[in-house]
């Protein structure tokens, strides 16, 4: 159960500053695409066109082959999960109520049970953690609850905006495992925004390297590494490998 996501020659500007300059990308059903790039490269803007948080100035965005402009944004957003950088959990709601948000919105008959199942799948025991407020969870637990919220209503696609960026290394590893586990079980399509090439290599099937509102190159990590299309892609890999060498030596 999953949706395909596609962007066709999408451009967008905020006032005078160009965020996207003709981006084309396609994510087949069940695949994960990582958008890698520096701050300001346009990756978050591209992500947000898929649930119409941003309506691009030009070009088209398709979800499951349908142009999103023809879809009601509220309906669309309930079908596509979303995980922001700091989780975006409602601070005054328990983890269970947070995760039950979309099940409640779409009118699932037992939203509470759906939430508990999602918590369980994300690696949080609902009996122990379901009743806690976000401030009573650790950073990693909060991100796992945020991921659980993004698929609790059986959403067929998920948009993740640097969800692991603020976590320390050990917590991040736990969160990766949780993400990989639910993905194996649910097979949803996903777009993951990250500035970390190693994270992209681990979690995504394909990587799109973005710079200044354009996709420099798109492909598997291996393809990009072997045949970098631009000096920028090459330098990105060179820096990542240098960091790895420093760690090994």
């Amino acid at each position, binding site marked *: 159960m999953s949706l395909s996501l596609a962007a066709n020659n999408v451009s967008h500007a905020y006032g005078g500053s160009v965020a996207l300059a003709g981006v084309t990308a396609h994510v087949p059903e069940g695949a994960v695409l990582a958008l890698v790039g520096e701050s300001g490269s346009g990756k978050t803007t591209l992500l947000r066109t898929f*649930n119409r*948080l941003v309506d691009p100035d030009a070009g088209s965005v398709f979800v499951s082959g349908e142009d999103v402009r023809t879809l009601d*944004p*509220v*309906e*669309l*957003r*309930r079908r596509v*999960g*979303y995980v*922001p950088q*700091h*989780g*975006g*959990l*409602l*601070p*005054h*709601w*328990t983890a269970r109520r947070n995760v039950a*948000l*979309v099940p409640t*919105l*779409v009118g699932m008959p037992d939203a509470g049970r759906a939430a508990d199942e999602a918590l369980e799948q994300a690696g949080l025991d609902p009996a122990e953690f379901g*009743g*806690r*407020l*976000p*401030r*009573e*969870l*650790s950073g990693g*637990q*909060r991100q796992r609850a*945020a991921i659980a*919220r*993004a698929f609790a209503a059986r959403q067929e696609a998920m*948009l993740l905006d640097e969800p692991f960026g*603020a976590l320390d290394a050990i917590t991040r590893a736990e969160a990766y495992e949780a993400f990989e586990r639910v993905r194996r079980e649910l097979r949803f399509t996903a777009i993951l925004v990250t500035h970390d090439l190693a994270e992209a290599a681990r979690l995504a099937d394909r990587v799109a390297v973005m710079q200044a509102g354009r996709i420099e190159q798109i492909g598997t990590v291996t393809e990009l590494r072997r045949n970098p299309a631009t000096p920028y892609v090459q330098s990105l890999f060179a820096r990542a490998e240098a960091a790895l060498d420093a760690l090994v030596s």
Partner: protein
Amino acid sequence: MTHTLRRLAAGVVAAVCSWGSPSAAQRATQDVRPVVVASKPFGESYLLAEIFAQLLESHGLAVERRPGLGATEVAFAALRSNAIDVYPEYTGTGLLAILHDSLTAAMRADPRRTFDHVSRGFAAAYGVRWLPPLGFQNGYAIAVRRETAEQHRLRTLTDLARAGSMLTAGFTSDFIGRPDGLAGLSREYGLTPKAVRPLAPAVKYVALASEAVDVIDGYSTDGLLAKYDLVTLDDDRRFFPPYEAAALISARLANDRPDAIAVLTRLSGRFDEARMRTYNRRIEVDGEEIRRVAADALRDLGLVVSAVGGDSAVPSLTRPGFVQFLWSRRAETVSQALRHLQLVLLALVAAVLVALPLGLALERSRASAEWVVGALGVLQTIPSIALLAFMIPLLGVGVKPALVALWLYALYPIARNTYTGVRDADPEAIEACEAMGATARQRLLWVRLPLAAPVILAGVRTAAVISVGAATLAAFIGAGGLGEPIVTGLALADSRLILSGAIPAALLALAVDGALLLVERAVAPAHLRVPRHTLLSRSSNVAGYRPRG
């Protein structure tokens, strides 16, 4: 929920409309409205109004008393709009402060010319009537201590101008500001005191007696002139306009109630300055009840065979202690505090009903928000007395204009806090909600409102405390409450009376603030309350308690 709110609003509106004025049914049973007798907030004005009231009552006419109305602007605005029917006024005030006219040489020479001029001017401009003067003048009287007068051989204002550079003046801000006050006096006589200190009316005699200043502006019938054995200087160049006292009558009374006019006219020409000074002294110095002094005055004039103060009036020369005084006023204080609380709560509930939805609406249209909130803020800068005075032509005197003024003052803090509270509520949580497909309404009810609740309540608390303070000024337009003893106390320079209103008002402010603090705690969102779980005891989870970065 909206249904309940709507019913609540309807109830408030009904309560506001019915309160303070007799209902239609009540009115139907009375063939005529009582004569509304008012005064300005100073001793002689209270006394004359009480004399008017008792005389009318002794002739079987129904009377409603509205003592201590604001100042000239408030009292006159009320008379002009027929909200009151009669109050004592002075020709000089009518000429300069109301008609904004100037004094001619002919008027200076003969007070009757001033009266004729003012009387004609009022009839033409406002349809308001002056009854023939009561027979005494209460004009400005420049006063010095007897030793000062002897030392510098002062008898007239010309003498004062000669010695002026050695003397420190203490003048009321009213006198300093008026054209017929200090500016004119300096021009006419060439008076230049060593220094001029602005003084509150309540303290000027004490300041003079204790030699803090050497010259003050008083009124020629002030009872305190006699108490402190002061010398008033003769206005030898006839600079000050005549201030003949007379009853000022509303157009309504003049047209509809010849019976009341006939009764009030019996007072014309019956008073003189010496007599007024004695009565004023009994009120201002001896602290006698105004009601009793008024009854004595009517008996002295042979107009009423005493009803109130029949037994030979024993002045309460020995004053009881402050605590005893407060205790003796307890019944009055409680009813004034309840009235005060009623005013504040009604205005506050009405303000919440308007400002809360307004704040929420502004969050949806932020472009206009700062303009709208800014406009409400400008209302805040209008002095309460001025705002109350503006209300009188629209709403008369009493509770209604006071409620509307308090309501206007309460709008700003509530609207401002509601708007900023919902605008600034956890933007990430709200964006996540939007991205999950929550509608704007759901985001408002589930996230923005609960998260903004403490900020909104803080605005309500601010408004409540401001209202308790502002409501003391409502006494100036006859709305009652704890401002009543404060206004009267200020007028009579009676600090015990002032405190008997000010202390309960302060306590009321604290109590209202405290009660709303409890509400604020009750509506605080879960994560801002004291942690509830047993989790605190589990050391392994302590790290999880750090607040979100």
